[in-house]
C-alpha cells in the first residue's frame, strides 16, 4: 500500500492506529455474555444424551425438582405444546430444539433445568432421570449411504435414505473426456476431518422477556444478530413474538470463527423459558458442551483427479465429495450453495475443464457443516487443489514451485472467468509466490534438503498458493433464508463534527470499532478517534447479515465508505452554500472542500457539519447523515503464497515447523497492524487442524476429542514465529480496493504444512497424508519405509 493519504491524527487507511476497543479489554471491562447480570436472573443448564441414537422412553424430573433452587425442568413435551420442539436450520433443514421421540447424537439436548443459580442448575441436571432405548448408530457416511442402512431422519415423511442433497457444478462429460485425453492423471483420496472452532469463549445467551412491554431482549453470542432476530420472529411468531418486539444484542464476543453463526437449541430453550417464566434466563455452555454439541466444520471426504500434459500444463480437475453433516444440515452457507463456495476448487490455476460434486449425508453426529474461520467450504477446496498440485508435481518429478508458476492464471488475464463460473476480480499470483520464495530462500532450502537426505535427515518444504473467495455476496446469487447478503452502514455526523457509525456486522475480535472508524476517517477526514462505531444491537444498528466468511470489509466496510461519500455529497452542497460558489467549483481534499484556484477559501467537514444543523441552505433537509445498504457487484478474491519448512523427528514422528513465510494479498489495507494480527491468528488456526485438532467418533457414536484434554489447541510452544509479508493488488470493484483478510491464512496454511511433511518423505514414495498429521501417522510411515529410528 502506498503512503497513507491522511495524517496520523486523522488515522485513515494505511495507518496502524491502536485499537479503540482495547482500553476496555485491557482493564477487564469487556462485556461478554456471561458478564451480564440482570435482576432476578435465573440459570439454565442442559441434560444431554450419553447415547448417539436412542429412543427416549421416559424423562422423570421429579428428583431434579426437589433439588434446592431448581424451579423447572423443560422437556420436548413442554416445547411441543407451543410447537417449538423443532426449528429450521439456515440450510432449510430442520433440527430439534428438544427431542420428543429420540436423540440423534451424543450430547444432544434432552431437557433443560432452570434454577436460581448455576450450581443448583448443575445439581438439577444430574438428578433428571432419563430412560433411553438405544438404536443402531450410524457414524460412517459411506455406510449411511448403503442400501439397508437405518434411515435416521424418521421424522421426515417418505424419507427412505440418508442423503441430504446432491450438488454439482461444471461439465461432467467434458471433464471426463479431458481427463482421458491427459498425458498424466493423478488421483487421490483426501479427507478433511471434522473440527471445531473452539473460540475461547463458548456460546451462551441471556434471554429477558419483559411481560409488561411484551418485549424480548436476548443478549447472545452471535455473529449475525439481525438474521437471528428474523429467525426468532419466524420460529416464534405464532406464540406472539413479533420482530419489532425482539431485540437481539450481541455484546463483546470472545471469538466467533463461524461457530457463533447458527441458532443453537440452548438459545431457543432459554428464550422459551424466559417467556414462560417471565424472568431473565442465562445459559452459558461449558467447554465440553461447546465441543460436543455446537456446529462442527469440514468432515469432507474428497476424491480428486487432476489431469495434465507431460510438461505440467493442467488440463482437467474433478473432485467428488461425501459431506458428513451429522443428523441435520445445519451449515451456515448462503441458501443456494449447499456446498458453499466449494467451486473455487480450481484455485489459482487456469483449468480449461473442471467438475465437482458433493453429496450431503446424515449420520448420528451433531449437526453442522459451518466454517472454521473460512469462507464457506473454501478451505476444503483449497486443500484439495493445493495437495493435488503437489501430487502432480511429484508424479511429473517437477519442482512444485515451477509447476505452480506454469499454471497460474496470468496477471494480465484478470478479471478472469473460471471454468466453474466465478469471475476472479484481480490477482497477481506469480508475484506473491516469487516474494515468498525470496524471503524463505527457496533455492538454498532445496540444497539443504538434498544434503540432509544424504545424511538420512528428514526436512520438507511445502508451498500453498491459494485463492480465497470472500465477501458474500451479490444479491442475485446470495441470500440466507431469502434475506439478501448485503450489509449496511448508518452514518451520522454530529453538529460538532464528530460521527457515529452503525453497521450490520458484528466484530468478534477483528477490530471493527477501529477499522470502520478509519474508513470513515479516510472518506470524510474526521479523525478516527472521533468516529464512534456501534454494532450488534438490532434496536439501533441497521440490518445486516453479520460477520463471517471475511465479509465485513468487503460488504459493511464498503457500505461505510459509500455512506460517507453520500454524506460528502451533501456536505458539498452545504459547502457551496457557505462559500457561495457552485458545487462544480469545489475540490475535496482530506477533511475539507476548497474553491478551485483559491485554496484559502475552504470549509472543513467540521464547519460543514455545524452548518448542517445551524445554517443549512433553505430547501435542504437539516442534518448530515446517510445510510447505505451495499450490494457488492462481485465477491473479492484475496490470495497468497505460503511456504512452510518442517523437520521430522525420525524417532517419534514429530513434525516441527521450523519456518513459515506467508505472503498475503488482500488488496488495499485499512490497518496494517490489524491485518498482520489477523494473519497470525489465521495461520495458527491453519496449523491447528494440520497437526493437532480432530473430532472423531467410535462405532457407538462416542465423541473423541470432546474436551480440551483431547481436542488439541496449539499453545505458544507449538506455534512457530510466523513471518508475514504482502503484495497489494486492489480489488477493482470494491469502493476502496480492499478484499477481506480474516480467513486467508486459515485457508492457505494447512496445505502448505501438509505439503511440507509429504515433501520431507516424498523420496520414500509418500504421496499424501491426511491431516491432522500426528506423530503417530508419520511414525507409521517411517516404520513402513524402514527409516524409523
Amino acid at each position, binding site marked *: 500500500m502506498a503512503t497513507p493519504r491522511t495524517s496520523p491524527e486523522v488515522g485513515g487507511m494505511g495507518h496502524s492506529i491502536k485499537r479503540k476497543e482495547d482500553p476496555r479489554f485491557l482493564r477487564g471491562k469487556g462485556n461478554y455474555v456471561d458478564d451480564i447480570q440482570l435482576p432476578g436472573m435465573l440459570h439454565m443448564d442442559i441434560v444431554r444424551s450419553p447415547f448417539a441414537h436412542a429412543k427416549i422412553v421416559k424423562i422423570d424430573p421429579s428428583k431434579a425438582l426437589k433439588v434446592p433452587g431448581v424451579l423447572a425442568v423443560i422437556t420436548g413435551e413442554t416445547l411441543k405444546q407451543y410447537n417449538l420442539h423443532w426449528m429450521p436450520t439456515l440450510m432449510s433443514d430442520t433440527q430439534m430444539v428438544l427431542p420428543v421421540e429420540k436423540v440423534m447424537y451424543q450430547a444432544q439436548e434432552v431437557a433443560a433445568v432452570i434454577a436460581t443459580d448455576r450450581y443448583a442448575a448443575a445439581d438439577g441436571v444430574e438428578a433428571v432421570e432419563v430412560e433411553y432405548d438405544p438404536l443402531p448408530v450410524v457414524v460412517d457416511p459411506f455406510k449411511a449411504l448403503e442400501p439397508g442402512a437405518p434411515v435416521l431422519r424418521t421424522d421426515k415423511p417418505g424419507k427412505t435414505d440418508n442423503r441430504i442433497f446432491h450438488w454439482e457444478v461444471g461439465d461432467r462429460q467434458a471433464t471426463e473426456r479431458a481427463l482421458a485425453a491427459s498425458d498424466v492423471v493423478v488421483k487421490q483420496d483426501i479427507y478433511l476431518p471434522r473440527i471445531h472452532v473452539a473460540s*475461547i469463549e463458548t456460546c451462551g445467551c441471556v434471554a429477558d422477556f419483559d411481560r409488561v412491554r411484551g418485549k424480548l431482549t436476548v443478549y447472545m453470542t452471535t455473529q449475525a444478530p439481525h438474521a437471528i432476530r428474523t429467525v426468532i420472529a419466524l420460529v416464534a411468531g405464532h406464540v406472539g413474538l413479533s420482530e419489532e418486539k425482539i431485540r437481539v444484542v450481541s455484546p463483546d464476543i*470472545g471469538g466467533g470463527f463461524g461457530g457463533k453463526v447458527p441458532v443453537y437449541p440452548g438459545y431457543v430453550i432459554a428464550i422459551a423459558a424466559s417467556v414462560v417464566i417471565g424472568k431473565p434466563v442465562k445459559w452459558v455452555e461449558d467447554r465440553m458442551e461447546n465441543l460436543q454439541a455446537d456446529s462442527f466444520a469440514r468432515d469432507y471426504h474428497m476424491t480428486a483427479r487432476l489431469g495434465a500434459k507431460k510438461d505440467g500444463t493442467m488440463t482437467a480437475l474433478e473432485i467428488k465429495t461425501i459431506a458428513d453433516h451429522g443428523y441435520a444440515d445445519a451449515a451456515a452457507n448462503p441458501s443456494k450453495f449447499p456446498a458453499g463456495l466449494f467451486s473455487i476448487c480450481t484455485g489459482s490455476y487456469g483449468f480449461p475443464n473442471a467438475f465437482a460434486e458433493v453429496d450431503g449425508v446424515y449420520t448420528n453426529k451433531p449437526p453442522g457443516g459451518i466454517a472454521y474461520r473460512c469462507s464457506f467450504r473454501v478451505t476444503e477446496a483449497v486443500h484439495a487443489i493445493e495437495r493435488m498440485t503437489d501430487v502432480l508435481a511429484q508424479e511429473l518429478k517437477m519442482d512444485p514451485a515451477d509447476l505452480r508458476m506454469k499454471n497460474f492464471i496470468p496477471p494480465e488475464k484478470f478479471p478472469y472467468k473460471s471454468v466453474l463460473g466465478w469471475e476472479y476480480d484481480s490477482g497477481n499470483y506469480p508475484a506473491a509466490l516469487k516474494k515468498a520464495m525470496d524471503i524463505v530462500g527457496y533455492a538454498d532450502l532445496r540444497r539443504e534438503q538434498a544434503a540432509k537426505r544424504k545424511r538420512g535427515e528428514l526436512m520438507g518444504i511445502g508451498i500453498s498458493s491459494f485463492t480465497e473467495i470472500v465477501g458474500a455476496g451479490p444479491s442475485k446469487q446470495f441470500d440466507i433464508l431469502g434475506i439478501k447478503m448485503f450489509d449496511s452502514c448508518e452514518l451520522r455526523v454530529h453538529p460538532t463534527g464528530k460521527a457515529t457509525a452503525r453497521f450490520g456486522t458484528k466484530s468478534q475480535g477483528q477490530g471493527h470499532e477501529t477499522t470502520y472508524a478509519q474508513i470513515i476517517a479516510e472518506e470524510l477526514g474526521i479523525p478516527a478517534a472521533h468516529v464512534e462505531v456501534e454494532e450488534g444491537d438490532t434496536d439501533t444498528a441497521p440490518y445486516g447479515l453479520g460477520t463471517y466468511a471475511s465479509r465485513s470489509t468487503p460488504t459493511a466496510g464498503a457500505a461505510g465508505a459509500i455512506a460517507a461519500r453520500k454524506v460528502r455529497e451533501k456536505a458539498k452542497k452545504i459547502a457551496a452554500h457557505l462559500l457561495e460558489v457552485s458545487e462544480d467549483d469545489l475540490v475535496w481534499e482530506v477533511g475539507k472542500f476548497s474553491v478551485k484556484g483559491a485554496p484559502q477559501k475552504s470549509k472543513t467537514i467540521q464547519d460543514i457539519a455545524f452548518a448542517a444543523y445551524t445554517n443549512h441552505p433553505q430547501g435542504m433537509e437539516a442534518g448530515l447523515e446517510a445510510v447505505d445498504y451495499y450490494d457488492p457487484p462481485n465477491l473479492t478474491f484475496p490470495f497468497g503464497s505460503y511456504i512452510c519448512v518442517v523437520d521430522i523427528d525420525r524417532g517419534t514422528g514429530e513434525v516441527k515447523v521450523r519456518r513459515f513465510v506467508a505472503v498475503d494479498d488482500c488488496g488495499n489495507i485499512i490497518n496494517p497492524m490489524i491485518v498482520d494480527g489477523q494473519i497470525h491468528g489465521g495461520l495458527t488456526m491453519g496449523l491447528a487442524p494440520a497437526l493437532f485438532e480432530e473430532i472423531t467418533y467410535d462405532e457407538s457414536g462416542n465423541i473423541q476429542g470432546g474436551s480440551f484434554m483431547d481436542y488439541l489447541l496449539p499453545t505458544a510452544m507449538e506455534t512457530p514465529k510466523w513471518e508475514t509479508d504482502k503484495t497489494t493488488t486492489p480489488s477493482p470493484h470494491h469502493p476502496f480496493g480492499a478484499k477481506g483478510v480474516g480467513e486467508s491464512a486459515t485457508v492457505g496454511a494447512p496445505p502448505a504444512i501438509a505439503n511440507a511433511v509429504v515433501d520431507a518423505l516424498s523420496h520414500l514414495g509418500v504421496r499424501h497424508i491426511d491431516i491432522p498429521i500426528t506423530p503417530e501417522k508419520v511414525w507409521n510411515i517411517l516404520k513402513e519405509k524402514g527409516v524409523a529410528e
Partner: protein
Amino acid sequence: MGKHTIKVTVNGDAHESEVESRLLLVHFLRENLRLTGTHIGCDTTHCGACTVLLDGVPVKSCTVLAVQADGREVMTVEGLEKDGKLDPVQEGFYQEHGLQCGYCTPGMMMTSCALLKSNPDPTEADIRRAISGNLCRCTGYVNIVKSVQHAAAAARTRQQDARAGR
C-alpha cells in the same frame, strides 16, 4: 452443604464472604465480587482464561476453591491499573496489538505480569514457555510475545526513571 466464612484480599480490598465449600474461586470473583474481567474458557485446566495471581503466583482460578483462597491475596486484571496508569503489561498489549477478542487477554496478562516479576528480561523462548498454559485463538501468539517484550522494556525504563527520581 458446608458453608465457610472466608476473608480474601482482592486487588488490595479486603472481602469477607460466606461461601459454599465447592464454590470455585473464579465464580467467587465473577459472581460474588462482580469482577468479571476474569473469564472461564474450558473448565478442565487447559485454557488459562481464568488465570489470577494467588499470593503473587499465577493459577487457574477455575481449579481452585474459593475456600482455598481464605486469608490470601488475589490479584485480577482489574487490579493491574494503578492510579490511572496502565501496568507496563497492559501498555505492552495495547502497543503491540497483543489482543483481538480480548477474552484470553486478562489471563494472558496476569501470567505475563508474574513472569516479568521473576524474570525481568525474558527471551522469546522464556515468554512462550511461560504462557504455554494460556490459550489464545486469535493472535497466533506472535504479538503477545512482542507485547511482553515491550512490557519488559517499559518496566525497565520505569524502574530506571524511578531510581533516577524522575
